[in-house]
């Protein structure tokens, strides 16, 4: 996931919710990001500031809480579980960057450390989602 795309998405979703709920102001947005998304939080915060700027009224002084969840992978073949962070540390720069843009590309470059199968599932730490939006 790209930080700017995510920032765009968070603001668009928040504005849509505000319109549906007839809110005058959004006071807090809670965003949860799975580690698989490989989001650079500093770039994401910078992108959010930039995307929010034109929406000053609705999103002025909105508190944005960003939580992260570590990613755990599990092999469908031999059931071995392992940490995504460990797998990432063994990839080269291009492979890691490809996963940053499209996280599912992990299935192209990562293999089960026990049986080498590419058929694994992400049991924790995938996706991005808005936990809650508060407003008045």
């Amino acid at each position: 996931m790209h930080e700017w795309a995510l920032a765009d998405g968070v603001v668009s979703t928040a504005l849509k919710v505000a319109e549906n709920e007839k809110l005058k102001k959004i006071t807090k947005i809670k965003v949860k990001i799975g580690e698989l998304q490989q989001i650079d939080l500093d770039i994401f915060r910078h992108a959010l500031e930039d995307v929010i700027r034109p929406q000053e009224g609705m999103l002025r002084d909105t508190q944005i809480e960003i939580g992260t969840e570590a990613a755990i992978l599990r092999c469908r073949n031999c059931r071995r579980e392992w940490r995504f962070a460990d797998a990432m540390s063994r990839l080269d720069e291009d492979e890691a960057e490809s996963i940053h843009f499209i996280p599912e590309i992990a299935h192209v470059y990562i293999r089960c450390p026990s049986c080498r199968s590419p058929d694994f599932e992400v049991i924790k730490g995938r996706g991005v989602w808005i936990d809650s939006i508060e407003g008045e």
Partner: protein
Amino acid sequence: MDPRLDVINKRIKDVKKLVAVSGGKGGIGKSSVASLLALILSKSGKRVGLLDLDFCGPSTHVILGIRNVYPKEERGICPPTAHGLKFMSIIFYAGDNPSPLRGIDLSNAIIELLAITRWGRLDFLIIDMPPGIGDATLDTIRFLERVEFIIVTTPSKVALETVKKVLQMQKELAVSTIGVIENMKTTDSSHVAEQVKAFDIPFLGSIHFDKDFENVLGDVDKLSKTQFAGDIKKIITNTPAFATEGV
């Protein structure tokens, strides 16, 4: 709430027409039709993008000989231009490696690619679909609200039977279908056209079996001079969805 979904329609808001090229089976020429449609529309002066959504068997880059171009990162991803087309494919991220993706992974990969790609202003975005009515097709219908389908078949009874299933599903989902193209035609039979008309779907035309097509894959100048390209040009001319008006 998944914030990625809201950004997808923003990414395609300046694309006038989204055309998904689909079909019931593999090997019937969907990717060739999608590639040549995109190429010929672009050569006629339209602003065209080509998106290869066949993640398990991407091939439009092979057909059009697209190499040594890469997306640029600028508040998202800007697709590179090749032969006048804006082009996006999973090959930029997976390289020549296989992409063993199950359903949920496939859906997530499609969402990510649609959410990050900034197409800008286009008259047409041609989408090369994987075969069948699986996740990619259902996701395309779900995420790209304005998408219209072109269905490719061959004269083979086997291909035609699966096309009937695709058409039936699209009718049930109220998906807009531009029409059906018959590829690899070898006789004068009008069987496919008649079968398609029974579904109340336009029959757009036939592409004759072109034995030289395989030999010129990857060379857009030679591809443009094939009978295949000539038949695609006729289909474009005779299909209102590709008329200059409205785009």
